[in-house]
């Protein structure tokens, strides 16, 4: 049973088709990047998944049920749609308490999630004094209150500084590592490229690509730059896994058609030290733009 199932999901606003016959399924334990430019229909899709908007046609199921009919939804699914959904005059902790109380979670759980997102020190301050990064972490905390099996996050990296993006990436990796599922939307592929296992790419209401990140990378001939004291041995180890390499400047290897995860795993398995490991994101970003550009037929 897929965790999230969308079947022919469609939403029209008057003459405008915001989401057009969208079908996909997400399995447990995966991190899926939901990508597309602003206005592609990502948020509308998430709103239908989460029962905030009714589909014009098709259906969206979470754990085999429409969200609104799912018993104990808040304890199974954590979701964030906007990083601005606070009363500015309420403290961060009180904001979470208004939500936890509705599903009978104790205040101790509120303090737990505040600690988890590292907001304990600011918990009793009014939200209007929070930075955008703190607000992002507070909405994430609200999604975590029910200790959910599925996290749905709309543009969670918006406004985060690089350190915050890294923190979020590590957090989501940890979250998914024990079999839980993440669906994370973004209009910037690079933000999520190092986090997700698979991508759904939307453009103008339609699903244009549904694939693993690895395949997407391979498809665009993306490369990974890796620096090692034993470049020859590493090139050989990669060749055994059908990964081609070339030597770039400063003696780094460029591994083609793969991901940094894969190269790192191969190097580790071969016992070869790695000093630097970088996905050359530009080519991925290029194909993303190409796939989602308005000039696509």
């Amino acid at each position, binding site marked *: 049973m897929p965790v999230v199932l969308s079947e022919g999901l469609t939403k029209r606003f008057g003459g405008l088709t915001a989401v057009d016959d969208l079908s996909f399924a997400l399995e447990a334990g995966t991190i899926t990047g939901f990508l597309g430019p602003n206005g592609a229909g990502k948020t509308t899709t998430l*709103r239908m998944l*989460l*029962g*905030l*908007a*009714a589909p014009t046609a098709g259906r969206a199921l979470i754990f085999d049920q429409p*969200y*609104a*009919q*799912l018993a104990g*939804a*808040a304890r199974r*699914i954590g*979701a964030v*749609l*906007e990083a*601005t*959904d*606070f*009363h*500015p*005059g*309420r*403290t961060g902790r*009180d*904001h979470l*308490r*208004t*939500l936890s*109380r*509705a*599903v*009978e979670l104790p205040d101790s759980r509120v303090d737990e999630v505040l600690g988890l997102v590292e907001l304990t020190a600011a918990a009793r301050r009014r939200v209007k004094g929070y930075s955008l990064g703190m607000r992002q972490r507070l*909405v994430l905390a*609200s999604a975590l209150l029910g200790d959910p099996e599925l996290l749905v996050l709309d543009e969670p990296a918006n406004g985060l500084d690089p350190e915050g993006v890294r923190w979020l990436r590590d957090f989501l990796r940890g979250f998914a590592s024990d079999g839980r599922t993440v669906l994370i939307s973004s209009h910037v592929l690079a933000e999520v490229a190092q986090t997700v296992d698979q991508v759904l790419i939307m453009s103008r209401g339609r699903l244009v690509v549904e694939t693993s990140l690895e395949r997407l990378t391979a498809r665009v001939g993306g490369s990974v730059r890796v620096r090692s004291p034993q470049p020859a041995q590493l090139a050989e180890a990669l060749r055994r896994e059908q990964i081609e390499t070339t030597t770039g400047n400063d003696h780094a290897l460029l591994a083609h058609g793969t991901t940094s995860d894969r190269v790192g795993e191969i190097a580790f398995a071969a016992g070869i030290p790695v000093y630097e490991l970088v996905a050359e994101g530009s080519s991925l970003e290029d194909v993303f733009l190409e796939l989602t550009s308005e000039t696509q037929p």
Partner: protein
Amino acid sequence: MIAQTRAELLKLRTTRTTVGLVLGMLALTILFGLLAGLLTHAGGLSTPEDQRGALGVGSLAGIFSALAGMLLVTGEYRFGTIRPTFLFTPRRSRVIGAKLAASMVAGLAFGVVGEGLGFAIGYVCLVARGIALALHGGAIALLLLGTVAGVALWGAIGVGIAAIVRNQIGTIVGVLAWGFVVENLLFAFVPSVGRLTPGEAASALAGLTTEHLLSAAAGGAVLVGWVVLLALVGLALTARRDVG
């Protein structure tokens, strides 16, 4: 439903807006209580009906109770907290039902404090000026209970209207314009219709006997009818409409 109602009460308690509403209610009750009790000519405070007006000045709390109810809904749409609220409680009828309940609990508090204070001020003024109390036992009980009940029901009316309109400014301006202008005009010129408005029904519920007003029981029934009608329309619309 009980958990959700507790959450809604917490929402009311955790913003400064509510504090502002309570302070506004106290200030206005003291002001109008003293104005009615001290500046009115002694002859204008002698009949039971005069004294009901002076001692029932706490019915002003109905405005603040209605505002609290309205803000409990429109504030969620204004600040976007309606999204997490519905994500945590996808059954929207439960959310609106809880807001109705919470607004009446809050309204009860507004009514008890407001009318308690209003009655005390009016009573002290009458005694201090040596004016004999023209109301007794049952009439005073009806005034106090009816006023408090009316104030509590105003909270639910606020929730119902706000669930229909959603926009904060629109809701507040609309309700104040209705309460202060339309109702008074209707009651003045078409009393047979005007007495069915929530404001005049609330006056009747408090035992006021102004000409054309309904009986207390009928006034109470009409006011409850308004609550039920607005709540049902608000519930139906909230269940159907997408949340942006």
